[in-house]
């Protein structure tokens, strides 16, 4: 049975690796400027994790094979180098590996979080609430009107609680149920939640960030490929969480200008 167990471990290890190696359910193509750093980090980690995984399982299997069913007179042998050898190997090899991953990974993290948005990044506000995303563009005055939670009225499509009578900044705000952005233009996404925790996730953009009640957070990114992508909520927010999504359309600048004009006309 020991030998069969060893073979089973090897088969399972190889079977586990196959879908990865054959890209059976791959990450979608990256469409962001900061994405390649993340994807490179992911590939490096996959290589190191994959080698560690396979090596550990194969050696475990090998030792189970070799050291079962030995006779009662067989001698116990000590692993060369003993415990100290393994400790040193682990500290040096694993230590170097994880520090390298940590140090190089800082660059990818910093690209998203430690660099401020550039001065001409286009501001868009996204509001999350059970169970939909709404997007707001500041309009020609470049200013967002104030949000008044007590004025939120979904029936009348006042999703952001704007005071359209008295607030000049709010009058030209453009509110939409989907997000459109021009390609190759940096976006400064201002994130606001109406009610509780949600999250903004676009796989292709390699962005994910929670909305936090009471905190106004922001993200910035630049999309470099035209197309239609899904924004999904990844922070459990209630019974409609699975259905909380919106579309992100990345368009040429001209198409975006047309889209924005149409949205303004529909306000």
């Amino acid at each position, binding site marked *: *049975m020991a030998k069969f*167990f060893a073979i*089973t471990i090897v088969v399972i290890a190889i079977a586990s690796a196959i879908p*990865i190696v054959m890209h*059976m359910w*791959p*990450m*979608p193509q990256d469409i962001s400027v900061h994405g390649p*750093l*993340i994807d490179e*980090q*992911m590939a490096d980690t996959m290589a190191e994790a994959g080698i560690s*995984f396979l090596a*550990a*399982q194969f050696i*475990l299997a090998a*030792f189970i094979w070799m*050291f079962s069913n*030995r006779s009662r007179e*067989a*001698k*116990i042998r000590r*692993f060369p180098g003993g*415990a100290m050898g*393994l*400790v040193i*190997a*682990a*500290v040096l090899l694993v230590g170097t590996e*994880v520090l390298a*991953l*940590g140090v190089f*990974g*800082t660059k990818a*993290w910093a690209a*998203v*979080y*430690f660099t401020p948005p550039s001065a001409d990044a286009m501001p868009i506000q996204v509001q999350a609430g059970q169970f939909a995303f709404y997007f707001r563009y500041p309009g020609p005055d470049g200013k967002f009107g104030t949000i008044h*939670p007590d004025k939120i009225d979904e029936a009348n499509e006042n999703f952001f*609680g704007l005071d359209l009578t008295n607030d000049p900044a709010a009058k030209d705000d453009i509110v939409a149920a989907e997000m459109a952005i021009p390609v190759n233009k940096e976006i400064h996404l201002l994130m606001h939640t*109406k*009610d*509780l*925790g949600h*999250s903004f996730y676009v*796989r292709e953009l*390699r962005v*994910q960030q*929670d909305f936090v*009640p*009471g905190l106004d957070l922001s993200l910035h990114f630049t999309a470099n490929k035209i197309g239609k992508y*899904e924004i999904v909520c*990844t922070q*459990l*927010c*209630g*019974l409609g969480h*699975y*259905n909380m*999504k919106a579309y992100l359309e990345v368009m040429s600048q001209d198409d975006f200008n047309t889209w924005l004009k149409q949205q303004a006309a529909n306000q």
Partner: protein
Amino acid sequence: MHDMSTHPAQHHHTAPTSFIRKHVFSLDHKVIGKQYYGLALIAVYIGMALSWLMRLHLGWTNLAIPGLQWLSKTGAPGGVMTPEYYLQLMTMHGTIMVFFVLTTAPFAGFGNFFLPIQVGAEDMPFPRFNMMSFWITFVAFIILMTAFFVGDGPPLSGWTAYVPLSAIGAAAGPGQGLGQILWAASIATFCIGQLLGSLNFITTTLDLRTRGMTLMRMPLTVWAWFITSCMGLTAFAVLLPACILLILDHVAGTSFFIASGLVVNGALVPHSGGSTLLWQHLFWFFGHPEVYIAIVPGVGIVSHVLITNMRRPLLSSKVLIGCMATLAFLSYVVYGHHMFVSGMNPFSGLVFSFPTLIITIPATIIVLIWIGSLYGSKIRINSASLFALGFISMFVSGGVSGFFLAQPSLDIYLHGTYFVVGHFHMVMAVAALFGIFTGTYFWFGKMFGRMMNETLGKIHFWLTFVGTYAIFMPFHYLGFAGNVRRYQAFVDDYLQPLIPVHRYITVAALVTGAAQLIFLYNLIHSRFWGPIAPENPWEATSLEWITTSPPPFDNFGGKHIEVFHDPYQYGIEGSTNDYVMQNSPEQIHTERDEK
């Protein structure tokens, strides 16, 4: 810490005579250990049934599950699970499994039974606190179960109960009123039980060791339980106030966790000034040590059983103890890796990621010590050793996905996906379960006086080992594809092509779940009709094997035990057996002794 060369001052409570005192409100650590194990056994089958319901729904969203409407008329009209009921079942699945199975069986179950025996004590120093700890835990379980049957059912906020979803009450969704309060009350009660239990474990280890039992002569299981109880004392002490604050936000109008200006269900929430992230810091400060509380006893049990079945000690027990202690210590400074995209300061994200990566080192050393000890050993294959070896494989598989999640830049993509679910199920749930199975097959004879059936045990092992890989490996692929977790159905464009994978997983889960019924049958059948257990069926060396199966009321029949060397004297040259009992005064090769 003193070695008890003088006779330890212990309670000498007399043997109980009434049924209630013997089997219900017992002061005997062995009975308490079995009660905890029994509670975990009931909990695990409930938790598993919940997972079947979840998996059926995920594969076939509109499936009518016959009988489900009797559990909840509103949650499953005609047997078809509503979206909210999926989340409610999911919340209960996680809560029951993490608290009432993974924290209870390996630690409170086996620890209560064997820690005093393995250090040569008659019982724990505070038997009444010990009895209370079990019954408080039992009450916590009952409180949690009532959530199924009151109001609009259990909470739907997940075992993590993030605020403000879990704090603002019924307006947030079904189960979020009374259900959430019952959840918080149950967990707070559970914390109290664990604190009392941890107190006993620590004091037994430090003060009740028998003559000759120095700290370095304690079995690795005792070290594991001791380290776990130190974590328990500090981690549960944080979760308890967190749950109380949550209850206060519900019932006392406080706003610990609720910010101002929130509009839920069309109405302004009448709270202000609270912090969403405060809950996450409190919860994960508990939550990360908690996962080590779940796994460290398994590390101890697997080490203990492997040594017996390899017929040689580990390359270094001291290194293994050091690694368990390092894991425990580091577990407090890594918790923010659950919060990389939470809105916490991104610099904190980097700060938390470094110790998270570093914690790989002691975990790797543990695996290398095990694998290195297998080299040149004489492995015996039986149900216990199969599960112990399977633990190593599973721990490696689950641990390796941690490389990815420890890095905040990769967590941007993988957070909230099935990759995370695959990681924690493999490294914590399945591995800890393997630890529980290892302990059960190894110690059942000692605990109940009859041996488990080996053939059924091996069948159980094969189906479970292959089955759990079949279930949880694909979770990682789903995660790479961006499959979001905690969704009751997959309606997004990119998720629909993944539904066949989910259906395959459901089938694997049902088959593997069915295999666990073989284990249950084996337990029950062996309990009453299994072959009588000898005193030392495994030719093992630690103190539990010098007494009868099961042990008498005071563990050693009034004998004063003296210990002469470390607990893993196997492969001894020149001895008639290949092992020497820990209490044997036989002169042996002393180089192996670690003082």
